[in-house]
């Protein structure tokens, strides 16, 4: 939430909370990407070094980390497209609430598909 030195009584609805979530996921993805480029850079060190790091991505704990990452990206991506639609399309602003719920439904479908898939990869089956 933006900081107002005087405080504010405004407690928004979908519009404000989606904006907060867009911000939080954007920052999270950015820091993941910094680490991700560094760990990928280990391919220039040695095959052993790279395999050791990518091996940590394959553990059950990290499997949940990857689910969280996909959840963050799927939200940021589709909410970002909603922001773009609201900005550029004539009927966008009028429908922004419907668009928000559309984002949530697409997000849910992606997660319902990805979570079982990830469980299969991680635990076999």
């Amino acid at each position, binding site marked *: 939430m933006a900081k107002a030195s005087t405080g504010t009584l405004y407690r928004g609805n979908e519009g404000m909370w989606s904006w907060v979530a867009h911000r939080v996921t954007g*920052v999270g*993805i950015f820091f993941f990407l910094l680490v991700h*480029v560094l760990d990928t850079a280990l*391919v*220039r060190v040695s095959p052993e070094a790279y395999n050791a790091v990518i091996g940590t991505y394959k553990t059950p704990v990290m499997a949940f980390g*990857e689910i969280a990452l996909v959840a963050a990206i799927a939200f940021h991506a589709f909410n970002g497209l909603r922001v773009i639609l609201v900005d550029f399309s004539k009927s966008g602003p009028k429908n922004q609430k419907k668009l928000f719920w559309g984002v949530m439904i697409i997000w849910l479908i992606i997660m319902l598909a990805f979570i079982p898939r990830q469980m299969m*990869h991680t635990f076999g089956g």
Partner: protein
Amino acid sequence: MSTTSIPAPRTGYSRHKSTRSKFEMFAWLFMRISGIVLVILIFGHLFVNLWAGEGVQAIDFGFVAGKWASPFWQIWDLLMLWLAMLHGTNGLRTIIMDYAEKPGTRMSLQVILYIASIVVIVLGTLVIFTFDPCPAGADPALLASFCQA
């Protein structure tokens, strides 16, 4: 006697000259264009690396060698690296402007952000283009099958 001259309408009178550079407008547009392209690049990346086949379990040095043997995936990753880093860096710049009020804090946070971003973009670019899929002396069992040829 002199006559007062009245300028023709719409001759470029503006109430106040914009003090903003065109940069902010460009940045705003860039966030949207890069966002649309990134949807394709990132979902494609996640589909191939997390969903298809055995997902993340299949990734190792040989997997990366196989992908970067093709210019298609080199360009894909290069575009994804640059667009995601520039998009994310500009997003963080906005956030710093929102929360850091003291000029000194703003300045130092921005300097740290830009240095980190430049390091990551340069490193990531070098990695894609200097990658050696068959390093001499490496354990052949860890390399892609095409290294034996």
